[in-house]
């Protein structure tokens, strides 16, 4: 019988092969994807996120946990199609135009995914048009933008303005992050929230959606 506590540990400790093996075993035994995700995967990602925030885990640990989680999720995704498996919310995420840095952004995306959100990851160098097209197409609840550079973070304001001009501002929350970004900047450009790490991003996203 599949020991799903092993899945929790495998994701937490970043063991890809083990995570995949336990997930496959659980699937073979007919355990529901929702149970695997909610009871074990989400909890493991929440724990690694909390450790990261507390300075007890670091970027390499988070990358490994995300990789193990993704390996497991790849097996579960086909089983969830066409079933009314509700996600917490839909997130469109990308690094803004002119900026190619994606490690931090991908960690945030993985954390969202691992914690039960549906994630549309647009990659890097994303224009306001691409953000808006994706938000419309997927009926996104949240747009998440990342920038590592002082020279590119200003583009976030353009995206906020474009979202307003499209009349989408009431339907979508906007979150921003990245090394040079801070709370004051988020407020100044009219974003709904700034968070400094992947764990906080998930928590704040949940709060934003609960309040809306």
């Amino acid at each position: 019988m599949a020991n799903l506590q092993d899945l929790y540990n495998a994701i937490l400790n970043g063991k890809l092969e083990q995570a995949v093996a336990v997930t496959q075993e659980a699937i073979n035994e007919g355990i529901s994807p929702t149970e695997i995700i909610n009871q074990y995967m989400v909890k493991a990602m929440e724990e690694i996120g909390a450790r990261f925030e507390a300075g007890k885990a670091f970027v390499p640990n988070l990358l490994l946990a995300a990789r193990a989680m993704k390996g497991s999720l790849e097996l579960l995704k086909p089983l969830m199609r066409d079933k009314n498996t509700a996600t917490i919310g839909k997130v469109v995420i990308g690094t803004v135009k002119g900026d190619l840095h994606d490690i931090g952004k991908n960690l945030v995306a993985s954390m969202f995914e691992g914690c039960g959100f549906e994630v549309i990851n647009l990659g890097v160098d994303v224009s306001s048009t691409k953000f808006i097209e994706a938000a419309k197409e997927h009926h996104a609840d949240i747009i998440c933008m990342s920038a590592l550079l002082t020279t590119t973070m200003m583009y976030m304001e353009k995206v906020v303005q474009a979202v307003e001009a499209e009349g989408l501002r009431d339907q979508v929350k906007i979150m921003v992050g990245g090394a040079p970004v801070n709370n004051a900047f988020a407020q100044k450009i009219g974003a709904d929230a700034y968070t400094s790490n992947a764990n906080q991003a998930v928590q704040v996203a949940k709060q934003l959606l609960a309040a809306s």
Partner: protein
Amino acid sequence: MTNSKERVWNALNHRGGTPVPVDFGATTVTGIHCRIVEQLRKYYGLADKPVRIVDPFQMLGEVDEELQERMGVDLVPLFGRKNMFGIDESEVHEQVTPWGQKVLIAKGIDMTPDAEGDVYIYPEGDRSVSPSAVMPEGYYFINAIERQQPIDEALLSYQDNLEEYALLNESDLAYWKQAAGKAAATGKAVVAGFGGTALGDVAFIPAMGLKHPKGIRSVAEWYMSTLIRPDFVHALFEHQTDLAIRNYEMLWNTVGDQVDVVFTCGTDFGTQDSQFCSEEVFRELWLPYYKRLNDWIHTHTTWKIFKHSCGAVLPLIPAMIDAGFDILNPVQINAKDMDSKVLKEQFGDQLVFWGGGIDTQRVLAFGTKEEVRRQVMEQCEILGKDGGFVFNTVHNIQANVPVENVITMIETLNEIRR
């Protein structure tokens, strides 16, 4: 009246009483973007000429003798013959950047954008292979293109990641001898970037100078390797350090004390509010190799050792001191817990702080002149007490910084140093 070299050595030896020495352009992490160099030249009424790009990766412009004089610079660089892309720097040609600035850049680099507005760079300038770097439209510097091949754990060898490191030959040494002589003749202190000594620096991991890089070449894969492939990383660092010591022995015999400071490693251990590894991992994986090279340098040369690491590195500083580094740069004062008062108090007698003169993420880039002035005054007072401080901004001055703020910073420095 002291000269540049005395000011620098007083700072390096933690002696007060002389004006704070100033660095702009002596390394690839204490430089100025070419766009700002052009604006500064204009402000100071210097000859209107294309700016020479000294580091195409970050598009840093040359701070030449005229500009050094205006900015009160005390240190000069000693750069290598080849740049990050393996392209020879001895021959340059005039190019226009995507933002319309005339520059002199290494001949192997063609700045003409493609139909999408992107500029591609090729390893060794060889356009018959895939590009190794790109300056996307709207960008002000260049980014690596990761060419990570599928990893076969059974075949993976540390030698795959050692390909870009080699023993120096006669011709390399002749270059360093000539270049060091020229740098030393300026009478300023000389900072050498001999290369080959950075352990696991993610700027080098993608190997933009190699045509067909093997091994671990993706930055994320590298970070994971520090945890899941420790034997691979140990073997790589071990062999890289062996080579580095043999090269440093030849370099010391060739240039001797014409060089004052060696910039050995730019591996970033800090993020904005955390670290890339625990102190335990740092001590286990990096410290033994750092210490071996640093001990060799201290035993055999007069060089001081410069370590660059961005970010919130406070928890790792004791281990960096144990590893034998003399100098810490860029002292990112706006990162978590990087309070200059605390740094100076706790480590000021063991480490020279090189940088930390002004925050570049907010104050220099977006602050008012008054904020710039106030921070420069404050940081010089705190970090400059009893020597142990070389003034520089926190990392390079970027393309978007208002030149008025740079000028205010220089004027404030001149006032302090009077």
